[in-house]
């Protein structure tokens, strides 16, 4: 005869309410773990998805994610001629904030090295990768932009041609993929008056030098957009990503590039570690600590609930003892009820979480490993939590029935 199930059946309402409360608490523990995973995953998402063997960044910086990095775009050409390099791509990333439908819209822009990289590797849920060198974008669904929608960024209007899922930047903002040229145009967009003043300044500098007077073509070039003037205002990229030929030795290639005075070269794994130890480290640690505290609080609350549940039955337990019940029966009653409560709370936490987590502003990633970890944690909490109740139940004397 299973006494625990019968007790639960008799107090079903109270048991369910307790389980819901505990389930919500466990859901928060689960959610915290999910947010922790989300922050970590978002942080390293681009590094992993870009799948570069080497990242070339500005000398002595830890860019392009952990800190600002600016490189001349021609580093891509330099990299391409290094023996062992299969492919080099420019990489640009920056975050912008615009108003859309009266609400702030934060976009993490990533430049793709058109035409080498059209974003075919992106996890699209609708639409297609980039199909032309300008005015198209692939946006993550968290930005709320649909295929065919047009959005003005700077002086130009960009049409969303594809929508991705789970492409979030380390700051939690949805990613939008443009060509590198468009990404730079958005980044360095300035008002017409500023452009005219810049051109006038260039012309003035050129006219003040002999070369400006002797080379009229230079004065004409001063009228061009800044991005087309490498000698005066060179277009800068955030980094250059390199993929190696099969069999190429990564350290040899890296050693060759390390000889360039203006760059620092990181491997994909080093870049990943820079991210985890850099911008997201404190958030990760804070959430990790909060999660540990929540587990401890859950354990305390659950212990108190189980202890109270045992106290409610202490007279019945004394009676069972008086009737000659063995310790195992009493032990089983308390422990099985703890497992029932923990199990129901865990299942509730999982299903409530499944419904709620998609509405969280940042990604909540619940992994199988985490679910198993939490199941073990709940199991351990049940055992530890019920030990107080078991201790009390084992100490009760049969003669308490008479009181």
């Amino acid at each position, binding site marked *: *005869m299973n*006494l625990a199930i*019968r*007790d639960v*059946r*008799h*107090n079903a309402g109270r048991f369910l309410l307790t389980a819901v409360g505990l389930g919500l608490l466990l859901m928060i523990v689960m959610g915290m773990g999910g947010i922790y995973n989300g922050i970590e995953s978002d942080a390293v998402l681009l590094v992993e998805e870009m799948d570069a063997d080497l990242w070339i960044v500005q000398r002595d910086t830890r860019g392009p994610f952990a800190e600002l990095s600016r490189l001349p775009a021609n580093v891509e050409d330099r990299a391409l001629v290094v023996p062992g390099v299969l492919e080099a791509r420019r990489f640009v990333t920056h975050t912008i904030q615009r108003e859309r439908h009266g609400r702030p819209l934060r976009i993490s822009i990533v430049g793709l090295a058109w035409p080498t990289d059209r974003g075919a590797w992106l996890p699209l849920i609708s639409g297609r990768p980039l199909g032309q060198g300008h005015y198209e974008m692939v946006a993550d669904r968290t930005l709320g932009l649909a295929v065919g929608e047009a959005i003005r960024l700077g002086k130009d209007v960009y049409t969303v041609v594809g929508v991705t899922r789970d492409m979030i930047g380390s700051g939690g903002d949805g990613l939008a993929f443009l060509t590198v040229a468009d990404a730079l145009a958005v980044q360095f967009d300035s008002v017409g008056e500023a452009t005219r003043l810049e051109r006038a300044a260039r012309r003035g500098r050129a006219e003040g030098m002999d070369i400006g007077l002797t080379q009229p073509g230079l004065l004409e070039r001063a009228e061009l957009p800044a991005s087309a003037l490498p000698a005066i205002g060179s277009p800068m990229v955030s980094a250059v990503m390199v993929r190696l030929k099969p069999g190429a030795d990564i350290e040899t290639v890296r050693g060759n590039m390390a000889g360039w005075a203006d760059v620092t070269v990181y491997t994909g794994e080093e870049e990943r570690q820079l991210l985890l130890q850099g911008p997201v480290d404190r958030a990760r640690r804070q959430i990790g600590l909060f999660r540990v505290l929540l587990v401890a609080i859950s354990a305390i609350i659950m212990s108190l609930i189980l202890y109270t549940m045992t106290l409610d039955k202490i*007279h*019945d337990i004394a*009676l*069972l*003892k*008086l*009737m*000659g*019940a*063995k310790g195992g*029966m009493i032990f089983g009653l308390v422990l099985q009820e703890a497992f029932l409560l923990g199990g129901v709370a865990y299942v509730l936490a999982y299903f409530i979480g499944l419904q709620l987590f998609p509405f969280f502003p940042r990604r909540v990633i619940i992994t199988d490993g985490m679910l198993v970890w939490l199941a073990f944690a709940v199991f351990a909490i049940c055992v530890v939590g019920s030990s107080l109740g078991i201790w009390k139940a084992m100490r009760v004397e*049969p*003669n308490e*029935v*008479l009181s």
Partner: protein
Amino acid sequence: MTGVPSSASPASSFAPAIETVGVTKVYGSGNTEVVALREATMKIERGEVVALLGPSGSGKSTLLSAVGLINPPTRGEIRIDGQVVMRGPRALVDVRRFRRERLGYIFQKSNLIPFLTALENVLVALAISGQEGRSAKRRAMDLLGSLGIAARAHNLPSALSGGQQQRVAIARALANRPSLLLADEPTAALDSTLGRQVMELFREVGHEHRAGVLVVTHDQRALDVFDRTLMLEDGVLAEGGVGQSVG
């Protein structure tokens, strides 16, 4: 109390259900010493139904808990079915097992487990002594049937009247065919009619099941149903005479 190996040997049908020799219970020591029971000696045969009377504080519950192996005496000897089970505070048997197999308890309040139905309350007593399955269920139903409450077998205690609850408690106490039934003011919470019915029930089950029955009671109106009465006053036990209408 349970340190001595079990010796719950089969009951002898000729030995008294319970016998106490010089049982004394002392609470406290020195200036705070209280003698609750003095040299109590008595014997109850199987099938005999005995009332234990006495004013409040006279030691009735102390005697009952001593012979019920709940609260050991300070001195004296307790024999159940002819077997010495307690010598002073020392248990000579596995007390838990002895309680399970030889004793049945009934209290002032029915003390039914509230989350079990009437049937399950009887079944749990059988389960404790390792009897489960269909035969246990049949025995439980038979007991409830013999006490006239089979129709309420699947009701929770909260859905039963006080009298019905006491009947379930009696069925539970009888489940393991005890040698001795101990009842502590079982009719205190019942009206006089129900109280008398319950007392008559004790006589019936005592005689039918050949169990010794010791009932602590204040209720003087139903003494005629008992075979014998014992009186306790200031911890001193005395024979109170035979009931007015025995059998």
